[in-house]
């Protein structure tokens, strides 16, 4: 064909026309559209079968039921279980973000690790479990061969009633070391106050849902206290009711916390004066004879003046309270008007089922023993002990005990030695463990009295107020073993990592979740198979004991952690009472006095175990209210306003010195009979008020994880930009305080205490008490990944802790600071 202009045009016109009628261009456009939106770096969620696993959240000791949603073998989402008695569907923000803890590769240890470079260089070598455990067993055997088993120490953050904690404690017993330390907890203070006044050792049990007047002395009920799911669900159940039919909540707080905002009455006494307010209320109750005569006359000791066996006269609680805590005096101490104190007391007394309670933070912050006692005295005055809607005297669950551990002579000798932290000695007679005295003991000796330190389920370098001295101690301790699944501040200082599973990969128990008023045993289930080469700490402890050999191996005759747990649960079966399932229809607290539903539905232990694994809970929906005889285990067998145990302890401690010296040592300012009774102790800061005019109070937020578990990225979404902006943490300051210090919203300022300084930004907030700087806990990590590390500051770096009188626990709310704009 001739190549002409005509033919040329024909060819191209035909070509274009032909292409257009063919599907090619349309297909191409479509493909381009799909291609541009299918970039390989946009993740494509995997498909699979949808399923759910019923389990229990063990991120705190609240024991909320969770439903883990899965696709294939992946966890996709966590939801609260409506058919679980504790939380009835409610879950806190941290529990909701649990999948980020499981799957965040950047924060997890994936296998046992040995440190190879110098400490802090973060040079690690992956080793096998056999290598790791054999090496550790040899080291521990070495200590025992030298006759120094006490050179093994441990810091354990597991809940003291959990099976893992008991296994670790048993390991220490069998080896012969008394130096097993629990992390400080709010429950310690509750336990001490209950022991001193009631002689009981059971768990805290507040029957809040049945109360009609809740007087909360700073207890952050809606800010994550106790079992957060339970508290928020309880609030949701009554919040819509008319004020006249729902419980009246009077909350005492220095800041417009979530609890204070929802309270019917919010009172703000000066920080640390809560005990004085409680005593002022006691004063009105006694003066106006509004206390329960029945309870006070029959069941208490030390209320009226009395004579002891030697014929010495003692002043009674009533006498002292009437003299020292008149509403006017209380107004001077607390700043709360006397008319309000009187009105509050009358309202408390005239309510049908009032309850007074204390508490601090989300569970890791201990309080002041005398303050907790002062508040509990109100429950006694109103006769609210073991009454519906009051403070119940609860017992530990009847879990079957293990056979006694075997002790050889090395172990028996070792256990006789004094604990390094001196907890339980005459100096700190009622305290379980003290991290700061432990650190001091290590720091003050020439060579470290600890050769091997085991740290489990805790990140004390980040979460305790006196972390500086602990870090110094850790530097000195030659060998540190961490069981943490996370690359947290503490595990980064270790020499050997024996990583545990995270909570969604393992079975764990929560016997009696914090604060829940009826007996409940929560059991979690692994939702997925372990992702990495980690091992359950329970199994690791058993395996370690067996490798150490001798009587230690004999004390651990189990094949697996599950077997030890199952053995304990047999005790619940043998009780012959209890429920395994909850249908969500009637809350358990509504039927505690009905004595119905006690007969178990299971016929054999195996069927109970299977059902328990399926539902995750065993509970007894019953409480024997009203009994007062035989529940108090104090020396007087009564509820003690005058604590014989304090008297006994101080007598022992003051042997060979004067009582005044002993009191000064223990840090008690009161004198005379008041020492043994609930009273207000002024806590003096070590800093000069003129030099450091402001008070720094750390706060815990429900949407910011401040404990061992690092804050998951999802929670960062919920922080306001007046809480965290870029890497700057904000502190809350009252407008008055801000203006006297020349600070505006967003100003950068340096907070300086006696022990250090931090740079923060200022959020001017009317809801903050003047003169106080509120700083959130939970940020300022130096470990974890980019989503957490380096954001904000950790208040504990400048906290200047003093010791709480009597308990010796660190007082974290009493640091004086200056604030200078930069």
């Amino acid at each position, binding site marked *: 064909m001739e190549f002409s202009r005509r033919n040329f045009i024909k060819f191209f016109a035909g070509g274009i026309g032909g292409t257009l009628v063919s599907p090619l261009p349309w297909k191409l456009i479509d493909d381009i559209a799909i291609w541009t*939106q299918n*970039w390989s*770096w*946009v*993740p*494509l*969620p995997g498909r699979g079968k949808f399923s759910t696993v019923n389990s229990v959240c063990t991120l705190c000791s609240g024991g909320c039921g969770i439903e883990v949603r899965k*696709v294939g073998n*992946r*966890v*996709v*989402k966590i*939801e*609260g279980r409506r058919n679980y008695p504790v*939380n009835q*569907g*409610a*879950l*806190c*923000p941290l529990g*909701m*973000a649990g*999948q*980020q803890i*499981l*799957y*965040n*590769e*950047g924060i997890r240890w994936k296998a046992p690790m040995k440190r190879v470079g110098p400490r802090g260089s973060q040079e690690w070598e992956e080793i096998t479990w056999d290598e790791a455990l054999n090496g550790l067993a040899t080291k521990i055997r070495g200590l025992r061969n030298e006759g120094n088993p006490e050179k093994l120490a441990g810091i354990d953050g597991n809940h003291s009633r959990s099976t893992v904690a008991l296994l670790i404690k048993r390991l220490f017993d069998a080896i012969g070391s008394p130096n097993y330390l629990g992390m400080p907890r709010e429950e310690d203070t509750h336990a001490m106050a209950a022991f001193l006044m009631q002689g009981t050792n059971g768990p805290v049990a507040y029957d809040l849902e049945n109360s009609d007047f809740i007087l909360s002395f700073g207890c952050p009920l809606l800010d994550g206290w106790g079992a*957060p799911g339970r508290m*928020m*669900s309880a*609030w*949701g159940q009554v*919040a*819509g009711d008319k004020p006249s039919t729902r419980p009246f909540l009077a909350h005492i707080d220095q800041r*417009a916390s*979530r609890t204070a*905002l*929802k309270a019917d009455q919010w009172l*703000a006494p000066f920080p640390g004066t809560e005990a004085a307010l409680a005593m002022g209320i006691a004063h009105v109750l006694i003066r106006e004879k509004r206390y329960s005569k029945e309870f006070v006359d029959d069941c208490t000791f030390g209320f009226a003046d009395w004579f002891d066996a030697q014929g010495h006269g003692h002043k009674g609680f009533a006498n002292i309270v009437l003299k020292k805590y008149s509403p006017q005096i209380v107004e001077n101490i607390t700043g709360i008007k006397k008319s309000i104190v009187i009105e509050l007391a009358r309202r408390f007394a005239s309510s049908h089922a009032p309850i007074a309670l204390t508490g601090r933070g989300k569970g890791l912050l201990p309080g002041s023993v005398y303050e907790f006692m002062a508040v509990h005295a109100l429950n006694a005055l109103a006769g609210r002990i073991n009454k519906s809607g009051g403070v119940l005297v609860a017992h530990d669950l009847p879990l079957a005990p293990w056979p006694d551990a075997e002790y050889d002579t090395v172990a028996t000798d070792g256990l006789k030695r004094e604990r390094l932290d001196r907890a339980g000695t005459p100096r700190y007679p009622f305290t379980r463990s003290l991290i700061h005295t432990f650190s001091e003991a290590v720091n003050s000796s020439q060579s470290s009295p600890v050769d091997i330190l085991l740290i489990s389920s805790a990140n004390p370098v980040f979460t305790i107020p006196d972390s500086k001295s602990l870090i110094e101690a850790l530097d000195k301790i030659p060998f540190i073993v961490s069981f943490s699944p996370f690359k947290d501040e503490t595990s980064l200082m270790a020499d050997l990592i024996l990583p545990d599973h995270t909570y969604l990969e393992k079975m764990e128990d929560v016997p009696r979740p914090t604060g829940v008023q009826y007996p409940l045993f929560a059991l979690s289930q692994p939702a997925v198979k372990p992702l990495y080469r980690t091992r359950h700490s329970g199994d690791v402890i058993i395996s370690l004991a067996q490798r150490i050999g001798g009587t230690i191996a004999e004390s651990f005759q189990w094949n697996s952690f599950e077997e030890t747990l199952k053995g304990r649960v047999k005790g619940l079966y043998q009780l012959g009472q209890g429920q395994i399932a909850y249908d969500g229809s009637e809350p358990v607290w509504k039927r505690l006095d009905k004595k119905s539903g006690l007969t178990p539905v299971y016929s054999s232990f195996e069927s109970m175990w299977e059902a328990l694994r399926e539902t995750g809970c065993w509970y007894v929906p019953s409480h024997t209210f009203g009994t007062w005889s035989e529940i108090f285990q104090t020396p007087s067998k009564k509820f003690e306003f005058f604590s014989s145990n304090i008297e006994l302890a101080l007598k022992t401690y003051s042997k060979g010195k004067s009582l005044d010296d002993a009191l000064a040592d223990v840090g008690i300012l009161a004198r005379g009979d008041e020492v043994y009774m609930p009273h207000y102790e002024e806590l003096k800061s070590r800093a000069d008020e003129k030099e450091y005019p402001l008070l720094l109070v750390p706060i815990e937020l*429900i*949407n910011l994880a401040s404990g061992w578990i690092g804050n998951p*990225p*999802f*929670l*960062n*979404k*919920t*922080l*306001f*930009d007046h809480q965290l*902006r870029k890497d700057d943490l904000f502190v809350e300051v*009252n*407008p008055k305080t801000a203006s006297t210090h020349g600070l505006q919203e967003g100003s950068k300022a340096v907070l300086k205490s006696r022990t250090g300084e931090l740079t923060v930004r200022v959020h001017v*907030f009317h*809801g903050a008490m*003047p003169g106080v700087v509120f700083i959130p806990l939970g940020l300022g990590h130096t470990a974890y*990944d980019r*989503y957490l590390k380096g954001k904000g500051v950790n208040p504990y770096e400048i906290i200047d802790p003093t010791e709480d009188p009597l308990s010796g626990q660190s007082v974290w709310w009493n640091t004086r600071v200056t604030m200078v704009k930069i």
Partner: protein
Amino acid sequence: MKKRDSAKGARYGMVIDLDRCTGCGTCTIACAAENNVSVLYDESDKTRNINWLKIYMLTNGKAFPHTEVVYLPRPCMQCGNPPCVPVCPATATTNDSDDGIVSQIYTRCIGCRYCMAACPYHARDFNWFDPAFPKGMDRYLSPEVSPRMRGVVEKCSFCHHRLMSAKSKAYFEGRRDLREDEYIPACVEACPTQAITFGDLNNPKHRVSELIKNPSAFRLLERLGTEPKVYYLTTKDWMRRMADNYLQGESKKEGNRPEKKNG
């Protein structure tokens, strides 16, 4: 203004009781987990981060200790007369007449952000970056919701995929209507204080229809005529007044009460 809400289909809506809400943030997290919402290294960058359900903190500004704070959760208002829909040049966002849900079709979105400018509630977020999930965290992504790519706008969908699966289930069982509890968005389900109620505003049997008649019910910026389907309840007058703009001297009593409307 012309009402677009059709009476024939369902009109899903939400009532949030602010007196009950503690501002804990569980809804935000449940939403992010349910809908594969990405996370930034710096989530404090509120102009770049993505939050389908954002919580605002409002205070009455009174001096200590008379300060009151209200936490206000803000999902997409799912307006009956959505300002975002007519401005979209790509028809990537539509108002569904069957369920009243304002959809967002990511694959159609060209990222012009007209809708963001039009939305008076700041309910829409733009993907300035590729969706980021910390290493290993793409393993929790749900196949029910597609992750978004860089350059598109996203927003709350009232967990539309939940409606779809509830509908499929009902269809499979031979039913046409959904029960009240059959379709519930993730935030409603997660709220630990049961502050959020969800249902069909066109169905007089659903609790939401009853709740919006409550004298303390109101909507945000109601005077714009966007007809939001998210209602709030509060007994705090100062908060209700904050929900809209008023002229100086305009009667406070007028407040922000729902107008009587048809349908």
